[in-house]
């Protein structure tokens, strides 16, 4: 191992030791500094891994990754995973540093499972040379970071074109932009919902891409599932929506995953159509890894990652946390609450922060269909740094029965003081981290 590599590994490990001793939990710092010393660190370390699997997309990375990780565990396969939330290159580097010896060795047979931020897919692919790349969806999210979704789509298309033919690309066929950019790419396996699945009534104005990415014609949708995901066709581009290798459907709480002509049927309390997408993406990857026999045990027992959809018992209350990040995600949460969980008389805390990880621009709140949620609200506390913006959004739904308390701790105390046992929390990312901490849940 050359000196540069060794110094970067040493620096990374020292920072890791230091931050775990001081409890600062700076998960990405080791990687950040190590990469400054040796920018090729990820490539050199990850080369030793048996397989590298990348998961990207606007929504669902963490849940899909977690499904795959549980499948690997059930199959007795060791893996490393940048679980702790940093999905930029520094997070990948930090995870590698943590798991290699000082001489930079990883034991054989270990898989690498990587959640990758949409904006760095290209660099991650260059460094990791993945065996499998999963792309969940492309929604509008943090426009202040990404500019436009087309910017990302274009980058992804270039990335797909640059990948080896041997790399298996697992792509959501229900996303018309993803279908368009992967059309000419070899070795693609598509996933999505069973086209018989009834659609949802989605407000057009939060559907980002209802015009064909290839020719600009207005797409014809037979069904809308989530945002612009659905069953669609283009009047000018034949067969825009590809056939699916793997599809999921749901009846009440029974889920069916169809893959390789085989059906896996199980019961799950995991709400939302969006989780069906996560299941079918994970199944697609699992089938390619020949892990089909572990599908049932993995999916039937699956519990989602912290904060995404989480039930927390606190004193004598049950709190359900649903992470909200962007219009499609929030609309899906609302649809889940109303259509699936059929909650009425909701007592909830909506916490909107605008730190970097949340997105500094809160305009996106105006693309969320709160009008659908307000009739079900009984008591609402609004918190977070942009509580006033959130309250303003509700005011323009003609809903004024809210209480504003920007301080998260005070807001949580107020929520817990209500006599209702079942409480709902809808936080943006950093608010979710803070609230979980207050509820005594720091583990991931």
């Amino acid at each position, binding site marked *: 191992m050359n000196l540069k590599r060794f110094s970067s590994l040493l620096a990374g490990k020292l920072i890791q030791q230091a931050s775990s001793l001081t409890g600062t939990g700076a998960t990405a710092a080791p990687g950040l500094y190590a990469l400054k010393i040796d920018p090729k660190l990820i490539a050199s370390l990850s080369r030793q891994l048996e397989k590298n699997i990348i998961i990207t997309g606007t929504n669902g990375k963490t849940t899909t990754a977690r499904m795959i990780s549980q499948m690997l565990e059930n199959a007795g396969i060791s893996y490393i995973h940048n679980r702790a939330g940093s999905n930029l290159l520094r997070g990948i580097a930090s995870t590698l540093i943590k798991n290699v010896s000082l001489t930079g060795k990883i034991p054989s047979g270990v898989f690498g499972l990587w959640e990758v931020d949409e904006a760095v897919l290209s660099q991650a692919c260059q460094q990791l040379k993945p065996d499998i790349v999963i792309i969940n969806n492309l929604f509008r999210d943090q426009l202040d970071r990404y500019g436009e*979704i087309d910017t990302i789509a274009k980058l992804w298309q270039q990335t797909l074109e640059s990948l080896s033919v041997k790399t298996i690309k697992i792509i959501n066929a229900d996303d018309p932009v993803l279908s368009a950019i992967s059309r000419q790419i070899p070795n693609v396996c598509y996933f999505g919902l069973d086209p018989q699945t009834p659609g949802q009534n989605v407000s057009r104005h939060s559907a980002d891409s209802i015009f064909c990415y290839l020719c*600009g014609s207005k797409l014809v949708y037979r069904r809308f599932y989530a945002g612009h995901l659905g069953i669609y066709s283009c009047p000018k581009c034949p067969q825009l929506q590809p056939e699916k290798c793997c599809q999921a459907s749901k009846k009440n709480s029974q889920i069916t995953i169809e893959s390789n002509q085989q059906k896996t049927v199980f019961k799950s309390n995991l709400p939302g159509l969006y989780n069906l997408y996560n299941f079918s993406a994970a199944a697609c990857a699992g089938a390619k890894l020949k892990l089909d026999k572990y599908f049932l045990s993995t999916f039937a027992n699956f519990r989602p990652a912290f904060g995404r959809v989480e039930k927390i018992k606190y004193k004598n209350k049950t709190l359900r946390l649903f992470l909200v990040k962007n219009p499609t995600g929030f609309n899906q949460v609302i649809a889940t609450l109303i259509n699936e969980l059929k909650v009425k008389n909701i007592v909830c805390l909506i916490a909107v922060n605008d730190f970097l990880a949340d997105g500094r621009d809160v305009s996106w709140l105006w693309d969320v269909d709160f009008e659908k949620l307000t009739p079900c609200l009984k008591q609402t506390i609004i918190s977070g740094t942009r509580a006033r913006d959130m309250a303003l959004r509700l005011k323009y739904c003609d809903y004024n029965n809210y209480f504003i308390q920007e301080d998260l701790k005070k807001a949580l105390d107020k929520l817990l003081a209500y006599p209702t046992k079942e409480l709902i929390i809808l936080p943006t990312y950093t608010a979710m981290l803070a609230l979980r901490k207050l509820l005594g849940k720091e583990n991931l």
Partner: protein
Amino acid sequence: MRITIVHLYPDLLNMYSDMGNIVCLQKRCQWRGIEAKILPVSLNQSFVGKKYDLLYSGGGQDRYQAVLCRDLLRKKPSLKQAALQGMPILTTCASFQLFGHYFKSKEGQIMPGIGIFDAYTVGSDIRKIGNIAVKTDFLPNNLVGFENHSGNTYLKGETKPLGKVIKGFGNNGEDGFEGAIYKNVIGSYLHGPILPKNPHLCDWLLTKALERKYEKKIVLPPLDDTLEWQAHEKTSSLV
């Protein structure tokens, strides 16, 4: 009283919470007992200015600009006439750009606009992103919002800037101006969306619309805008 608001290209230009501006206009009418009708007008649909009172056109992705451009040019005569007749029009982002003379991409491709604003936009690699505060000379308070654009817009001649940038980039990060105003046509790069946290601008547009329609001076009954101004203040403090 009643008012008809045209929402131009709601299906193409909806990428950045522009619906919030329509909702704001509509509610601020409803809360005053004014009936507000929203009329969507999109591709291949004609638009006759005299029948309508206010128009809004929002932001969108570069991808749609070509399609939009062709259609907008067909609507140019009626839009120009409406503008000359004093119809209040609000255009944000992509619409703001296409209401100028042209948009020139980084690659040198020219997309013609409808020239209501004496302005032109050139593409650039630098994204101008962040909270922004703007001082106008026709509104009693500042405007606040969030800007996010790479295009640089330059004004000339009769078109005045909407306001001066107090803090932020503005149209091009050079001349200290934000947006544009010509007669009652306003253009701006402000997101937020622009109207909910700037209720005074919303009411200005509504007043102009009603005065033009009913041909008399209109004073809108005040609304309790405490929350609007608190949200406005918060953005101001972040700038």
